[in-house]
């Protein structure tokens, strides 16, 4: 179902979402765009454009258009599995323990999710909702979620989603999708929830011309990408070069700071920490973000399997670009480029992967 709206219509969609959901959307915070909760419609970063490069980020106010900015620097995982999420509370009384599990039933809506992040969400679904042990914490939030996809108008210098299995024709589970036309917006309602929301607002159906125009806009995006990664036989090529001395070259530059894993929309590794009360009658088990770059991440007893930065960088890149394919049949990288922007050592995963596959 296709509809056409102006900015007022956009505002009414936003307002309508707020009636039912905790709405999370991009906004300007600390000089960058970040997903935040309870953003006022007037605080959406309409008209901003973003310049990103290796260890470089700049926002400009420009355009007179609306969705000219790109994906925010934080990702959906921040809200699905916060950096410190209470898993359970253990109470101790007379030597016996009792457990309270903290499944979160909040209804979240994301307003303005770009295709790379929608694809990343499906990638995370495959991790957390795997058939044998579906994660009820993740599942509860995921099933109650509403997703508003938005088409990008341009790619930044770090974007390469078009090489990583992110296709313009796919809406990746979004409930509605918005494509900006000249001063107006094509709304595509995709799910039952999506149709219900839009129908309630009594907005105008789109014309065939509008739909065609949106298709052209989308296709125009492809010519704006500056990066390219050849993914044919990528896994095989990386496996072949797993012991290549070039990994050392990257290891020398990498700081093991974990920035890349924190901004990555698919990095899921976590630790479980015990947070104890001083009276020792209460202990919380807290899932907290971990990173394969942390020094003791792969320690078994006192033996550290990946004791060098080189081995930890290799683990990360190999997981994203190769292991993930064996594990889940897709890449662990969606080409969003965040890790490139936020690497203080200017290590560029696309550049390094391209180099490693050709060695």
């Amino acid at each position, binding site marked *: 179902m296709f509809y056409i709206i102006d900015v007022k219509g956009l505002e009414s969609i936003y307002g309508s979402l707020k009636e039912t959901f905790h709405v999370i959307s991009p906004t300007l915070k600390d000089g960058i765009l970040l997903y935040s909760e309870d953003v006022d419609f007037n605080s959406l970063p309409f008209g901003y454009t973003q310049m990103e490069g290796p260890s470089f980020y700049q926002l400009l106010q420009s355009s007179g258009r609306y969705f000219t900015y790109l994906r925010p620097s934080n990702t959906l995982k921040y809200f699905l599995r916060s950096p410190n999420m209470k898993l359970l509370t253990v109470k101790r009384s007379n030597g016996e323990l009792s457990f309270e*599990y903290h499944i979160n039933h909040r209804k979240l809506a994301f307003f303005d999710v770009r295709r790379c992040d929608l694809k990343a969400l499906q990638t995370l679904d495959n991790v957390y909702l795997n058939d*044998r042990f579906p994660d009820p914490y993740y599942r509860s939030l995921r099933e109650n979620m509403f997703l508003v996809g938005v088409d990008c108008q341009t790619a930044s210098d770090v974007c390469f989603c078009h090489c990583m299995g992110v296709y313009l024709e796919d809406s990746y589970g979004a409930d509605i999708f918005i494509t900006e036309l000249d001063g107006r917006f094509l709304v595509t309602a995709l799910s039952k929830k999506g149709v219900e929301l839009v129908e309630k607002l009594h907005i105008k159906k789109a014309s065939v011309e509008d739909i065609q125009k949106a298709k052209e806009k989308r296709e125009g995006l492809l010519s704006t990408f500056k990066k390219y990664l050849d993914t044919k036989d990528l896994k095989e090529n990386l496996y072949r070069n*797993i012991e290549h001395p070039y990994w050392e070259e990257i290891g020398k530059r990498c700081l093991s700071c974990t920035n890349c894993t924190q901004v990555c929309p698919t990095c899921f590794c976590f630790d*479980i920490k*015990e947070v104890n009360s001083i009276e*020792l009658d209460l202990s919380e088990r807290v899932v907290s973000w971990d990173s394969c770059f942390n020094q003791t991440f*792969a320690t078994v007893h006192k033996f550290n399997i*990946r004791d060098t930065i080189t081995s930890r960088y290799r683990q990360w890149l190999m997981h994203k670009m190769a292991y993930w394919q064996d594990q889940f049949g897709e890449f662990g990288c969606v080409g969003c480029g965040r890790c490139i922007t936020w690497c203080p050592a200017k290590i560029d995963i696309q550049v390094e992967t391209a180099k490693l596959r050709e060695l």
Partner: protein
Amino acid sequence: MNVQNPYSLVKGKVVKVHRENYNTVSVLVESDIKPEVGQYVMFYTFGRGEAPITVASYQDGMSLHTVRIVGDVTGYFQHIQEEGTVYLRGPYGNTWGFEEAYGRDVIIISGGLGLAATRWLMEKIIQNRDNFKVVYSLYGSKSFQDLLYKEKYNIWAREIDFRVTVGTPDPAWTGRVGMITQLLEDIKIENPSIFICGPDPMVKAVVDILSSKGVNKREIKVSLERHMKCSVGTCGHCMFGPFFVCKDGPVFRYSDIEYFYTKKSV
């Protein structure tokens, strides 16, 4: 909708505590957990967290767990009491799949605490003894002091060819002294099915010898030890190459993992 929470802990009763040696204890636990041969459970200790512990034996709702007291969580087992309560979740991981060895020779090779992971396998093979041809079980221990399950050797030796070697001479030990690889030199190897659990360097050395004797690496199964935290394939800690040891393993066919297992720091 009711989804099983994989982090749910169940209560277990400590039925028996047996001190194996200076740093290792075996506990028999009664609980609702129904493991299969080769699987493990997560033990929770209040305020300290969890540790993955293999199931060394199981019968009628009671599972045996042999714990080396080396870490924060396992430290709890230092003072564990009979009739006490423990909390655990599981079972996790795959199984040894010993049925594929029916009609063939079997060689079980265990190093150190690895014997805890092969003990139930051995017992299962003994229970189904007629389904196998020659069965060897080779066990190497660092020293006499480190030996596990000493009271069981004679019982096992009645049914299978169970051989032990210790790494250093000891006045109290009259048996074999030396490396486990030497035990391999003494036995007949004719198209056997092989099950190994021990430290990585031991596994590599043993596989080299077996392979030089013509054993196909597809016939070798290895139970790996990695740091499992969640045990359900989501925390990433036990990742080894493309494998999640917690859910794809702990038992692997050696031919499947060889490429990554033989690379440093993977």
